[in-house]
């Protein structure tokens, strides 16, 4: 479900993907940084799956805590921007961002937050 859906579903929202807004380039930079960090941490965990390093509880806790913080910051970013700009939302839908154009899209049920 999309992060904040307070409006009725517009009839125009029949396409799979619709541009529902845009953010400032500086705001795009914030979410891009968070997105890259989360992707990097995901990669790190995957690449170390068979490594004894991941079994080290100190290291493991650090990675999990960092991942948790990053995911939380990402969710907070989407909540704050959706509230600020009043993006459309639908049940089961997700917003996504085109990092190039700063456009925000409403994807109907399949896409994940991110680029």
């Amino acid at each position, binding site marked *: 479900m999309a992060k904040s859906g307070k409006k009725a579903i*517009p009839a125009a929202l029949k396409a799979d993907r619709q*541009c*529902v*807004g*845009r*953010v*400032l*380039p*500086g*705001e795009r930079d914030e979410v891009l940084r968070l997105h890259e960090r989360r992707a990097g941490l995901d990669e790190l965990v995957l690449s170390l799956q068979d490594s004894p390093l991941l079994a080290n509880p100190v290291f493991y806790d650090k990675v999990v805590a960092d991942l948790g913080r990053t995911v939380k910051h990402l969710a907070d970013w989407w909540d704050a921007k959706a509230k600020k*700009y*009043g*993006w*459309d939302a639908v049940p089961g839908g997700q917003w996504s961002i085109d990092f*190039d*154009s*700063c*456009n925000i899209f409403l994807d109907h049920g399949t896409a994940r937050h991110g680029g």
Partner: protein
Amino acid sequence: MLEPVAGCKMTEPAYLLVLLEQGAVAFCHDENPWFHACSEPRWIEPDLLSGIVDFAEESGKALMFVLGRSRPPKRIERVMGRIDHAKIVPFGLHDVWDNVVVVVESEDRERFAELGEDWARSLILRIARRDLAYCSDMVERLVGRFGRLALHLRGIEYFGARDVAIYARELDRIAVVIRRLYEEGRPVETNVLTDRLMLSSMRNCDAGITHVTIAPDGRCYICPADFAIGHDPIGHFDAGSGLVIAPPASLTLSRSPLCLRCDAFHCKRCVHLSRRLTGEANVPSEQQCLIAHAEREASRRLLQALGPMEPFDRLPRLPDLDYRDPLSLAGARPPDRRFGL
């Protein structure tokens, strides 16, 4: 269209930019995300607008209304109609009124043909960084649809040397188009190429000096970009006390030592970008200087190419410069004690 008076130290702005709604179209380097939001427009209160119109009439200030995607409600249009004014409108409203300044985005280039022929139209073309390589193509498509074309680049804060090189190449191509139009007897203008030819001193945007922006809630900003990005207002407007503003002194040309030594007279000297990129309104960023000098250089070559053509043969030639960033002067020449360079 209203023109700012450059380098002029004014205690009172000569004209007011009034954003009629939160999603007023961005017409310069900035972005206004509310323009793209699906939500209902948040219009300026008719009473507030009425107060602004009365104030402008009494004080002799000119008004420029900036619209968003929707046509204003009748109550607001009635108040607007009480005074002579200029309108800046997005592409979608270009055919609603006559004599408006139309803003088109580079993303709309496939739809440029929808603009009918009009050799007197004032047009603003905002070019996204990723569309830089299509600048000249877009100008060619717009030929016959403008008398004055203002090119504004978006995303300047992300420009690198490669972007500036692409832009410089495109400017030369646009100059070929302009030259052809002059040869056909079409006296068109474009801010990045022809303005510099006519200037003998700085003629910048002068936001916060010759004009201020009034947001739909009555707060006053140096320019619309400050409103969109959420910078602090410089004052407010209300019907009782009129315009109560305190713009920072650093906005004036006399407080900008680098710009005082520069001869890219057409440069917008965008204080909003300067503040964002260097932290100081009176210190331009490298990107701004390189872009302004690419335009100056293309203007110089255009004037050279126009050669003996009337009336350009009477204009003073622009000297060839051995630098592109005025900041390089600081190290290359003896220090100028007046400005601490």
